[in-house]
């Protein structure tokens, strides 16, 4: 099988697997990075969101063959000490319930703050509504995103 080279959380990786294999399963089952979650496998829940060259993508929709020479960041690599402004704001606002969706949510929110350092509620609706939180923690996420934005703008 062909070998694919990608950068993952800042480190080069070589993956030898089916070119069609979704990145989600590469991360979870081959590389043991289980922070990225499976929720739908169809690109409609956002649980598997990672950054591809800084852009949030659904890793369940990305075949391994499309990952060559790209750089990916997963929740495990978002910050060195769990102190990304979104992570901190998530704790401050006590967002998580079961927590299963939250890695995907935080990855989306972190990307949102890059493109919209001061997001409006409308921006948050636009960018976050691909995601499912079956526990319904949306309003706390909204508050956490605003809080993280304030922290980023202060810094």
């Amino acid at each position: 099988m062909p070998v694919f080279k990608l950068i993952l959380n800042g480190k080069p990786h070589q993956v030898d697997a089916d070119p069609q294999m979704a990145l989600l399963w590469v991360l979870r089952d081959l590389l043991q990075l289980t922070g990225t979650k499976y929720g739908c496998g169809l690109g409609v829940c956002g649980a598997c969101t990672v950054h591809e060259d800084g852009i949030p993508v659904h890793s369940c929709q990305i075949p391994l063959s499309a990952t060559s020479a790209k750089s990916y960041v997963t929740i495990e690599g978002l910050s060195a000490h769990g102190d990304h402004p979104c992570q901190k704001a998530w704790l401050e606002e006590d967002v998580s319930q079961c927590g299963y969706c939250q890695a995907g949510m935080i990855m989306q929110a972190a990307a949102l703050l890059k493109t919209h350092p001061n997001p409006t509620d409308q921006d948050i609706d636009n960018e976050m509504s691909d995601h499912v939180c079956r526990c319904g923690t949306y309003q706390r996420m909204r508050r956490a995103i605003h809080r993280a934005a304030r922290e980023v703008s202060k810094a």
Partner: protein
Amino acid sequence: MKATRRKFLKTTALAGTGLAIWLEIPKNAAGETATVFEPNAYISITPDNVVRLWMTRSEMGQGIRTTLPMMLLEELEASWSQVRLEQAMPGGRFKGIRLRTSGSGSTVETYGAMRKAGATAREMLIAAAAEKWKVAPASCHAREGTVIHDPSGRKLTYGELATVAARQNVPDKPPLKPAKDFRLIGTRVKRRDGAAIVTGAARYGLDVRVPGMLYAVMERCPVLGGKLTRFDAEKALAVPGVRHVAPIHSGIATGVAVVADHTWAAIKGREALHVEWDPGPNADFDSDRFLAQMESAVTQTGFPIRNDGDAPKAMAAAAKTLEATYEFPFQAHAPLETMNCTADVRPDSCEIWVPTQAPEVALSDTAKMLGLPEDSVKVHITLLGGGFGRRLFADYVPEAVELSRAIGKPVQLVWTRSDDMRHGFFHPSDIEHIAGGLDAGNNPVAWVQKSVGSDLSMFGLPSEQDKTDPKFYFNDGSPWGLFDIPYNFPHLKADYIPLNSPVPTGPWRAVMYPPTVFARESFLDEMAHAAGQDPLEFRLKLLQPGDVHMVGGAMIDRGRLAGVLRLAAEKSNWKQPLTGAKDRWWGRGIACNVYDSDTYVAQVAEVSVGREAHDIRVHRVVCAVDCGLVVNPAGLEGQAESAIIWGLSATLHGRIDFKNGGAVQENFTDFDVVRMHESPQVETYTVSSDHPPAGFGETAVPPIAPAVANAIFAATGKRLRRLPITAEKLKA
């Protein structure tokens, strides 16, 4: 007393007292050499000053890994920084202690036991210090993980006292703190495990990784109750990474599992599988036809559930009567983490890792299946990516156990989203027919309700025999929301007509309340409008303060229900008309419920509907709660928000249809849920109360659907009686 479905969810079947009993760990025979202080199953303290607390409920988002430690620490007086949380496992140390998580009961059922466990340990630590210092225990107190001798100020840490504490007598009735001295209970404590979640370190069932494990998915018969006849594994085995293909007979549906090096190959292998089925008797089951059947069943005489006064006569004499029919379709649970179980069956033992609300069932089913004593089976409870009642069933455990036994390796059996949505257990579909009568002065005099449903099976109830027993449903106290209609109608009749369907049903968040409460609270609104009265005032007349009554088998304080209605009305400015953008209609709706005699919830929803598109937006929900003492207000607010979004998903989107004997919906595309852009602002207000804590995890679900439907009526004049409520239905 006979078991009822309510009791199964609410209390412990083992102890029967409503409080978990705990096993006293026999003290180390060598006495002096004991280095671990374990006064009971919940707590152990070691000389390194680490306090281990065993969690006897599953964490599924309700925050129990925060609330249980709060209750333990309140009495134990250890500090958060020295605490490590351990998840209890069924059997062994926890034999006889209930670990099942259900019925909004995580806090209620454990409150007494946790406090007693903490107080026991504290008293023994104080006794140990007193012994060491040769002083009276009464001259010492415990605080932040140390015992302090008050006169001298001497201190010893719990770690330093562990060995001596282990030798002390276990007090029978350790003194509990008076509520005024609480330092933790009643304060806002954030989730203790938040950091693990936001860094991706939290481990759910699907994150279990065991050396040498394989991954599997399973093709289940697409028709309810159908059987596997034959399969051809050749093409599946040709998929790179696929290792085994094996038939499975032990879960909710028979089928064929494909085992591979990773989940991806298992999924691809399954696509290549050729399977033949005997569809069995349900091949043409159709939920639309079943619905029609339910609607015509309302003319039948059902099982009597309530009969107060003489409702038929009062209806005949009423000055004005009205009637309506409400529909609640089948619903899926769809927790974001799909069902899964990892099993490692060895010749004389077995270990499983499973996100479950029912670990005892997982244990006994596994042991039975393998013919092993329960002591040889270890059940690790992982974090649950949502439970909502689905994980009270352990059907996904034997599948994995059977598979691991067949292949002789540890294996993780993964349900894909489509598996999860099409198989398993569903919220029953339901039709409610209500007729009401008003007298000449527009006072409500009669209420006649018929509830038709595909019923709910759980824990083997009802049995086939129960189903024909005219008293079963009455004694069972079901359906919930029917037997305990809280309003004081002088004449009230309620009957239940359960219809058999092949759809496996089970508890969903708020169990049987959502359909009955949707109908009841909508119809009260209809009656209020027919009477020309304000829907709040109309309800309050039927709920007088001080009127504490047995309704059905439940003790209901009508005054407490009136109290939450008033609170919700006040906080939402009920009397002021709601206005907003001119291109939308605006309105408020109110609804309430009493959950299982002890949690009182009222909600006001603020809704607008686009004049063009008829799109529905729920802007704000005010939720007023009286559930006795609140252990963690932060947790309670989270649960209110969560329950409201859950109920709103069913109000606006959710339904599962069955065609040709199988579920139609497969993913969040056709079974959508409320997302960020649709989620309202939720405000929660609690009534401060001396009542003991009552459950809350699901109790805020039932009122939201009728509150929204009533608000839509207030805004548009259109009454929608069939869930989900959509723009298309509003336009029609």
